[in-house]
């Protein structure tokens, strides 16, 4: 798995450099190259997980593997979005460096072996980490798209010309990606929270132990619930939704990753 992860990591780095150069230069070829490299990196990354499951089964129970899975799912979502919206190099330039850091650290910190696969809690832990990672990944994409939307909205409102030819994705594309990622991400996070509770129950006989991770994740989930309701029921406008997505994701990172590492 480590070899595939290293290959994926190298490809993500190349994608980050190509996409950033393509956006800043600007060059269409480099932007397209960046997207293709991200695609190849994602393929290598998928192969890494394939190898992991085909060989010695290793549940997604550690932070490094979870981050790696989150990165993979975010990339898959972005690549699917590229099929619909062509001009997403700005997002590739933002996501690829994160993908590189995520996979690089994962490759360095992979555990030698995972917990016993015969354990009854493994199924829930596996599902919890997978879905939680998917939620994190998609909400990360929503946050990044929201961040870019705020930048582009501010520029268009201020009537400032494109600087150095740097062309970000359109407001419409960023808003739709933000909405789709928020909706899907919240769904995954919700199921991830539920499977997390089932995992705790299988292991300790209760659904909630009151650990800092559980507490902060529940708070983050509640905040996302408000964001999703505001977006889908109250028809929040694109700028407000973008602000919410950025703030929500920052809080989620603190709640899940920050608290997880600290404890």
């Amino acid at each position, binding site marked *: 798995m480590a070899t595939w992860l290293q290959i994926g990591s190298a490809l993500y780095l190349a994608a980050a450099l190509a996409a950033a150069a393509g956006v800043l230069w600007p060059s269409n*070829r480099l932007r397209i190259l960046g997207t293709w490299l991200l695609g190849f990196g994602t393929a290598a990354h998928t192969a890494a997980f394939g190898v992991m499951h085909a060989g010695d089964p290793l549940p997604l129970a550690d932070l490094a593997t979870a981050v790696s899975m989150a990165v993979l799912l975010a990339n898959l979502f972005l690549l699917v979005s590229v099929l619909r919206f*062509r001009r997403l190099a700005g997002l590739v330039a933002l996501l690829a460096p994160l993908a590189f850091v995520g996979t690089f650290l994962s490759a360095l910190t992979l555990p030698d072996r995972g917990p016993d696969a015969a354990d009854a809690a493994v199924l829930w832990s596996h599902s919890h980490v997978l879905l939680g990672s998917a939620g994190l990944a998609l909400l990360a994409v929503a946050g990044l798209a929201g961040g870019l939307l705020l930048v582009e909205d501010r520029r268009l409102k201020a*009537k400032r010309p494109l600087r150095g*030819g740097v062309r970000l994705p359109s*407001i419409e594309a960023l*808003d739709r990606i933000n909405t789709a990622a928020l909706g899907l991400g919240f769904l995954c996070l919700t199921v991830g929270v539920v499977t997390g509770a089932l995992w705790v129950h299988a292991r300790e006989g209760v659904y909630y132990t009151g650990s800092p991770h559980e507490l902060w994740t529940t708070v983050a989930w509640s905040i996302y619930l408000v964001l999703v309701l505001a977006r889908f029921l109250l028809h929040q*406008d*694109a*700028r407000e939704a973008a602000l919410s997505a950025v703030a929500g994701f920052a809080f989620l990172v603190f709640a899940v990753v920050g608290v997880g590492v600290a404890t």
Partner: protein
Amino acid sequence: MRVLLCGMNHRTAPVEVRERFAVEDPRACLGKLRGRSAIAEAVLLSTCNRVEVVAASSEPAPAEAALRDFFERELAGEAPLPGELDDYLYTYHDGDAVLHLFRVASSIDSMVVGEPQILGQVKQAFREAVEAGTCGPVLSRLFQAGFAVAKRVRSETAVAERPVSVARVAVDLGRQIFESLEGKVALLIGAGEMIEAALHALRGDGLAEVRVANRTPERAAELARRFGGSSHGLGDLPELLVEADVVLSCIGGQAPLLFWEDLAAAVRRRGHRPLFVLDIGVPRNVDPRANELPGVYLYDLDDLSEVAESNTRERRREVLRAEALALEAREEFLAWMHALAAVPTIRRLRARAEAVRRREVERTLRRLDLDDRGREAIDALTRSIVNKILHAPVSRLRALGEEASGLAHLEAARHLFALDDPHAPGAESDRELEAEAGEGRRPAPGAAPARGGDPERERR
């Protein structure tokens, strides 16, 4: 063979002169150019901003005279010009002519730098010359190189990336707000010429549906009919604003037509879809505060002009990069021309043959136990064989080298004898030849770099 370019453009001749020289039937004109003996090859480029003839000739002075005569007799017509023809015409030779053509094809010599039409016009001129039989190997190579450099300029620089007309700026802004204008609904407020011009640009980018609202229903209906849309009165604006994605407004009147409250009400009803409002009316038709509404992007005529100005400045900055590519291409083309000259080809052929002969003689002599007399005899024998074999091709190349058809022979000779292959037998002699030639061609230290394309300097 030499390359010349003679013509006039928007910098050297006013429009009333340029339109006199504009060519309606290029083939007939090319036929007249072909009839002039000093001109071996010719391509005629005629656009609204320039009329130029690119020619290849082995007699540059008579060819230049013939080109000027062509402008005077065939194109100027009978009526007197407002000034002297020589004041409008420029002539470039060799490197300057090549560079000028590359700058033209790359659109860095255009009135609007980076405009896309010129490359198509240059291609069309080349095609017409090929069909008329006035384009030979030199100009074919030159124009192909021009197309290649234009492509590089387009893909490697941002010269053509930013729109510089108000209508194109509007389309470009539309693309920054919407992924594409395809399927979007446009609301036109007013039915004048400005609206129509802007609408043409937006429609060219795929805008789907058009709704026209105007004070005069007849004019609204007329415009709607031409663009396949629906017409409305101004009273329908509140409803139309809810459905529109792009609003294009240019209607007379002193007071704004759309107030902040109108747009705020529409924004509340349209969900979170963005609304792009182009207010090109003077005085403005839309309350400027509407730009503060979420999802509303309001641009008036000054805003659009400012973006266009800024883009023009950016394009000019990119011209330096484009110039560097054109200069690089010019050096490559001149190197090709130089390689095809008869003398360098003959010298290389002889040098390679001599290098092969010398190496083979030395190898043979090492195996034989010969005295000096015997060695000299073998050396003379092989030298004589080589000279006799080379005599015919060298004589023919020399005779044909300065003619148009000679280029094909020179190119064939270089191909058959593998003179451009650095691994062919005898290629080790190339370095000595290149060193000699380089010393002859190299500019003196501190000399001004090669330049071209300044009509003021070149005007004669």
